[in-house]
């Protein structure tokens, strides 16, 4: 009985992704060309982007009028006609960061609330007629990535006891005492067949090795852009970011003047209220689950672990809850934009975004036209001028690729500058649900319920063990979920580890450097994209060929230890003299190097360096991803590798695709000992 219910629940979740092709309407008249529409807009709501010169008049007009007029006569006439209720900045003033907000032009974004019965098209047209208005955009709703199979947690007890691995197994591989770590194959996969008969040791993010170097730092703040995170969950509370001014301040007051009231652990941007736990949705603890993957408290004797959860002495990364979903509500474009700006302005350097549009959008331009405020918010979050941490100049936003099985990533993850994460199962194969292909950049464990569930097990109890185990609250404190939503926080947690280590080493990385590190610290996944596995077809399962994923899961599956080593520094490539060498560069570009698509100039070396090293012939990359070079004189030089992270085409305005990456590596041409010794 339980099996049947679970199947239906899965089918429903997958099926409920709306299959809308995005409408991008550009009307013929010149005023209307300023209008960006959306097929799912909020009523009585419009985003207006003012010209540079006009905005100061708007600002004084809005503040004088109690936020219902701008002081621009023609515009105010329109506002009156449409029944204006309120005009305000999209990004509220945070006095600590107003200067850089204005430099980024974000003070020019306004949202106008008006009579909800007034036709949106007419309102937009009237606003667009105003010369001072540069752009008008409908304020669309964000939709969550449909999670493939949110299944309720299995209570631990006899069921779990029967399938526990031998005591030595996982515990030996890690030093934390969390009792449920053995269920978290996605951190340390020892090949426990109690999880799935076809499990393969090593299909994880390599926490066993990474945690020997670092397990997090409380100065690294990860914004979880999702449902609210249950801030008092026993396995999360100690790692929550706290706005101490608000916590110790007066209820109902913006104690720190950051533009938000009572934002103690974050804020509810969906409803414009303090954080509110979702109670009416099965997906309500989605944010809590992903937060646990990022930084559930490690080594505290309860529950499981988080990638950057610390070592049990209050040293985990911190979780900031930027709520954009509440029960059945999603934030608008404005709300989402505010979430990202808030995250940046309050110290977060990683944005963990397990959501996306379930519309079939296939270009950056199309996405921008329906979510320009959100995109600008994310860009602000990543901007190098928005400094809030010594480890990185800017921030990195990480998105889930989506669970619609499409051969392209959902947006905003697919946006050419943003990282999009695909999902891997406990045997290295792609999760059956994962989007892949254009716009997808890297893979991480996301689980696959159609593995343990259908194990040929005499005691088949509908095990969920091949999913991802983390913190929850809807039906218990811990539970399983699967999806690219679960893969994404693995990358966010690994990123938090990387930045924690950068802090420890006193290194400051640029956003480009760090994205390059994240996308090249990978192991090859393409070699596992072979054979068949189960997928859901309606209410039934069927086997399908997984070779279609090869070359399309991103650069590979992320390895936390490699990230840490790459944060530490870049090793040199030793090159022997006098002989043409074919050198393995997977250490520098990731384990999937043989499958990478290189750009027009795959490897560059300056003419000066070529002469210095007496390079003979061309420097090339072979079809198997090896550097081919012949040096005849001792010396050191720099080579640049130029390639695409994720797929075979670069993303652009017109079409989703991978990210252009340049990685610089030093080579040292010298006759060293055959074992690598200097002498």
């Amino acid at each position, binding site marked *: 009985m339980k099996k049947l219910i679970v199947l239906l629940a899965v089918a429903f979740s997958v099926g409920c992704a709306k299959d809308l092709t995005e409408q991008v309407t550009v009307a013929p008249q010149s005023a209307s060309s300023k209008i960006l529409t959306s097929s799912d807009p909020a009523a009585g709501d419009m985003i207006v982007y003012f010209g540079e010169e006009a905005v100061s008049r708007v600002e004084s007009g809005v503040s004088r009028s109690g936020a219902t007029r701008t002081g621009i006569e023609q515009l105010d006439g329109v506002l009156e006609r449409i029944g204006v209720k309120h005009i305000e900045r999209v990004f509220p003033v945070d006095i600590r960061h107003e200067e850089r907000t204005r430099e980024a032009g974000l003070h020019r974004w306004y949202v106008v609330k008006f009579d909800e019965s007034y036709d949106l098209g007419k309102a937009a047209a009237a606003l667009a007629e105003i010369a001072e208005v540069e752009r008008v955009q409908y304020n669309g709703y964000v939709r969550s990535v449909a999670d493939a199979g949110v299944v309720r947690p299995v209570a631990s007890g006899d069921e779990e006891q029967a399938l526990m691995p031998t005591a030595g197994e996982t515990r*030996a*591989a890690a030093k934390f005492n969390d009792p449920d770590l053995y269920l978290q194959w996605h951190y340390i996969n020892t090949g426990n067949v109690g999880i799935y008969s076809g499990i393969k040791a090593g299909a994880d993010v390599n926490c*066993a*090795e990474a945690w*020997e170097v670092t397990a997090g730092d409380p100065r690294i703040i990860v914004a979880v852009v999702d449902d609210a995170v249950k801030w008092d969950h026993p396995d999360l509370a100690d790692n929550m970011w706290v706005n101490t001014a608000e916590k110790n301040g007066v209820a109902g007051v913006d104690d720190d003047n950051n533009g938000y009231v009572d934002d103690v652990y974050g804020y509810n941007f969906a409803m414009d209220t303090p954080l509110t736990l979702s109670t009416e949705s099965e997906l309500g603890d989605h944010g809590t689950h992903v937060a646990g993957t990022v930084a559930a408290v490690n080594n505290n004797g309860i529950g499981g672990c988080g990638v950057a959860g610390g070592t049990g002495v209050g040293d985990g990364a911190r979780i900031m809850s930027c709520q954009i979903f509440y029960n059945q509500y999603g934030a608008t474009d404005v709300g989402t934009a505010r979430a990202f700006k808030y995250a940046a302005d309050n110290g977060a350097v990683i944005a963990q975004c397990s959501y996306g549009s379930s519309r079939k959008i296939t270009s950056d331009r199309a996405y921008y036209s329906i979510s320009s405020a959100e995109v600008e918010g994310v860009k602000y979050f990543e901007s190098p001028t928005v400094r809030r941490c010594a480890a990185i100049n800017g921030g990195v936003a990480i998105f889930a690729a989506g669970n619609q099985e499409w051969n392209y990533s959902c947006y905003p993850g697919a946006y050419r500058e943003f990282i999009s994460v695909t999902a891997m199962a406990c045997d290295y194969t792609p999760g059956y649900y994962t989007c892949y292909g254009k716009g997808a950049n890297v893979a991480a464990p996301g689980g696959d319920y159609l593995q343990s569930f259908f194990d040929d097990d005499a005691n088949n109890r509908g095990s969920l063990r091949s999913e991802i185990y983390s913190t929850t609250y809807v039906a218990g404190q811990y539970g399983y979920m699967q999806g690219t939503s679960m893969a994404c926080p693995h990358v966010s947690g690994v990123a938090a580890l990387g930045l924690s280590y950068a802090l420890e080493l006193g290194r400051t990385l640029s956003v480009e450097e760090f994205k390059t590190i994240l996308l090249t610290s990978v192991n090859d996944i393409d070699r596992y994209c072979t054979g068949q596995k189960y997928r859901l077809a309606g209410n039934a399962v069927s086997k399908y060929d997984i070779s279609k994923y090869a070359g399309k899961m991103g650069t590979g599956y992320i390895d936390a*230890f490699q990230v840490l*080593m*790459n944060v*530490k*520094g*870049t*090793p*040199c*490539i*030793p090159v022997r*003299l006098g002989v043409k060498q074919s050198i393995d560069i997977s250490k520098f570009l990731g384990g999937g190097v043989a499958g990478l698509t290189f750009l027009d100039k795959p490897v560059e070396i300056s003419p000066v360096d070529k002469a*210095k090293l007496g390079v003979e012939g061309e420097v090339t990359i072979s079809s198997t991803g090896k550097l081919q070079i012949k040096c005849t*004189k*001792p*010396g*050191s030089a720099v080579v640049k590798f130029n390639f695409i992270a994720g797929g075979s085409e670069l993303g652009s305005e017109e079409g989703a695709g991978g990210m252009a990456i340049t990685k610089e590596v*030093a080579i*040292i041409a*010298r*006759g*060293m*000992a*055959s*074992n*690598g*010794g*200097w*002498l």
Partner: protein
Amino acid sequence: MAIMAALCIMASVGCEPQEKVNPIQAGVVGEWKLSSWSDGMSEDIEVYAVFNNDMTFTLYQKVQYVYFVKYTGQYLVTENVLSGTYDDGKAWGASYTVTLGADGQTIELVNSANIDDISIFAKSTVPQDVIDSAVSMTSRGEEIYMLDRFL
């Protein structure tokens, strides 16, 4: 007879051969840091060399890896040429012509097979954190950083 005996005694005292100390041998003993190499050196490279009186040496180098790797072995000084073998049985990549700095604070090693390959080492104590963190290579040249720590 007595005179002959005296002569013999004088002769035998004068015949004792004196121990000759190779100044190059004496000069390389110590702890050194690679301060320059050929016409420049990547900032990412760090190499420390320790030559001991008992003809053993230790290298700590951060070249191919981002952490320090330790090599040990035996060295030999023949006139002004330095050569050696690693404990894994591999010979050095080359032998080196040694020139001592006038103040005893540097040594210059020139690859006997390639005079463009010049390493200059400056006297420097190996930092304790380098010694503590350095990992060893296996005899097959595999990095065992992970094996050492995580089994």
